[in-house]
């Protein structure tokens, strides 16, 4: 037995009211962040996207945000609150918000929701993610060329598909230009702990790595590289331009602005539909930051060329022949990885000498 609740009816009424509002050429957009906007990394970049929306649309788009929202019931409440306050479109910017977003989207059929990096959709719930592995292919290419010790250090957060894709992609492209290359992988088991990232980078450098790749967001590894002297690294999430005259030779940037602008625009002109977007370099969601002069001209030119072929779709970073770590075949000659397989990736490719922690 179900009661038609007071809440549902207010929600309906408000939902109708908001869709009516949308037609008078104004849109209210809510953002919910898992970290503080001052984290200088993941949440910072999402907030940059929000600022880009404000700049693009001026008074036509009003944005609000709530930061440092714990995943779970708090996230659901914050989104509900935004919807009740008349938001037309809500961006839930962390994987952990998935079920909360699904629940809220059910309660407010007239409000549009967008969830980053998840896999559940609904008529009013779209998902979006970036193909960071495309960018990592370019970084891997540079790293493979630049290393003299042939040891590349890689700092991972947790062993999940997103991170494994990055490691595999970087490894494949480093190996292509440097068959002797070896990856040393360290799992920090945290999304955010700058001191631990510093330790991890130091350990890798001490064990002979002269190139550091990182999948954690602080500049600590770059600072460690700078202190060590002859080590290079890459900016992660944001450009980390402050290390440009030092160890940072390039960067992989999360660029959410264009996507947010596009989606807000669609709500404004009434053409918003649910979607499953997985965009890469070609769409500008993944950017490669300026490659500095420390990288030789020819390597830089190759890296840019690789970036262009990936952007145009002519080349997919996961193209066969590729074997899994245990030697079994994954992709045959010329075969390109399916998105489904990439989304659930739980293995290393052949050649990586490390185990995925269980």
């Amino acid at each position, binding site marked *: 037995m179900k009661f038609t609740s007071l809440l549902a009816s207010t929600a309906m009424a408000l939902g109708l009211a908001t869709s009516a509002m949308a037609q008078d050429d104004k849109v209210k957009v809510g953002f919910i962040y898992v*970290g*503080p906007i*001052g*984290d*200088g*990394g993941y949440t*910072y970049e999402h907030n940059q996207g929000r600022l880009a929306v404000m700049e693009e649309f001026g008074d036509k788009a009003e944005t609000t945000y709530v930061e440092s929202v714990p995943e779970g019931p708090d996230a659901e409440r914050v989104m509900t609150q935004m919807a009740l306050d008349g938001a037309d479109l809500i961006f839930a910017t962390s994987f952990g918000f998935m079920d909360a977003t699904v629940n809220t989207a059910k309660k407010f059929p007239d409000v549009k929701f967008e969830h980053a990096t998840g896999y559940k959709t609904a008529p009013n719930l779209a998902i979006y993610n970036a193909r960071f592995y495309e960018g990592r292919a370019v970084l891997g290419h540079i790293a493979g060329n630049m290393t003299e010790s042939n040891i590349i*250090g890689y700092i991972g957060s947790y062993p999940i598909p997103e991170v494994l894709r990055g490691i595999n992609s970087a490894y494949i492209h480093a190996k292509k230009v440097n068959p002797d290359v070896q990856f*040393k*992988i*360290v*799992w920090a*088991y*945290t999304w*955010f*702990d*700058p*001191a*631990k*990232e*510093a*330790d*991890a980078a*130091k*350990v*890798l450098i*001490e*064990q*002979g790595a002269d190139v550091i790749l990182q999948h954690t967001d*602080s*500049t*600590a590894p770059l*600072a460690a590289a700078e*202190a060590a002297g002859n080590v290079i690294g890459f900016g992660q999430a*944001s450009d*980390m331009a*402050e*290390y440009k005259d030092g160890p940072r030779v390039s960067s992989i940037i999360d660029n959410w602005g264009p996507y947010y602008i596009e989606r807000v625009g669609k709500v404004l002109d009434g053409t918003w539909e649910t979607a499953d977007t997985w965009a890469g370099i070609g769409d500008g969601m993944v950017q490669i930051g300026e490659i500095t002069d420390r990288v030789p001209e020819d390597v830089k030119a190759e890296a840019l060329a690789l970036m262009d072929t990936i952007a145009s779709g002519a080349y997919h970073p996961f193209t066969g022949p590729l074997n899994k770590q245990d030697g079994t075949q994954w992709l045959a000659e010329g075969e390109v990885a399916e998105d489904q397989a990439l989304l659930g990736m739980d293995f290393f490719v052949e050649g990586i*000498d*490390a*185990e995925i*922690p269980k």
Partner: protein
Amino acid sequence: MDLSAINPALLIASLMVAATPILLAAIGELVAERSGVLNLGVEGMMITGAVCGFVIAVESGSPWLGFAGAAAGGAALALLFALLTQVALANQVASGLALTLFGLGLSALIGQGYVGIKPPRFARLDIPVLGDLPVVGRLLFGHDPMLYLAIALVAGVWALLRFSRAGLILRAVGENHDAAHALGYKVVRIRILAILFGGACAGLGGAYISLVRVPQWTEGMTAGVGWIALALVVFASWKPWRVLLGAWLFGGITVLQLNLQAAGVAIPVEYLAMSPYVVTILVLVILSADKSRAPAALGRIFHASQ
């Protein structure tokens, strides 16, 4: 797996660096606890120190001024705790927890405009000949000045507690505040000073993270180090040199597990990460049978009721 890739000298050198923030915070907390005050707000004081140090270093261009500012910032927050617990006689556990909440918020407000900035560099001591010696050079002479200062602080606290009259009074206050009061010692004043010292040290520890180890400012960047410092004081059974040893052990476990990972050894990271705490509990159990134990008046409220 390639264990030969691990260089023991470098491992020890980096665990010394990794241990410094906890060491600084823990030695300060040790003094506070020896005076009978349990301040659970270490994390809040550390992050406040981290942001004050960072802001002042960036604005003045001098990391040394930054560290001074960090100590002042940490002490300022500690003063709040001192007012609450010593003057207003509030419960120490609750006040300490509230202090951490407050410090995390305050630091984020102060640091708003400082994300993505690189602080002035804090140079390593470069001792010409000694620093180039094999193994020991890097180990003993290749660090930054704050690291040595932290060790000197441990020695200073040890000497103070052990040999000086001030140390004796401090311990007396921590063991039995009523008796100390009866002897004419200013219990409240001594405790406030101990709390301020604890805050200043925690502030230095925080600034070591934001100016030396990471160096950058991001919200919440101490990521729980303050809590580890609390564990460490207990682990060390309130003895300064054991704090040093414990800090290196705690730091060592982190650095060692990262080293093992990098060398390709598959280890259960979560279980290794638990181990310092489990060891601390074991130490506590052993200590409770032993004579050396917590200051008897730890966490108790003192009110002179003459």
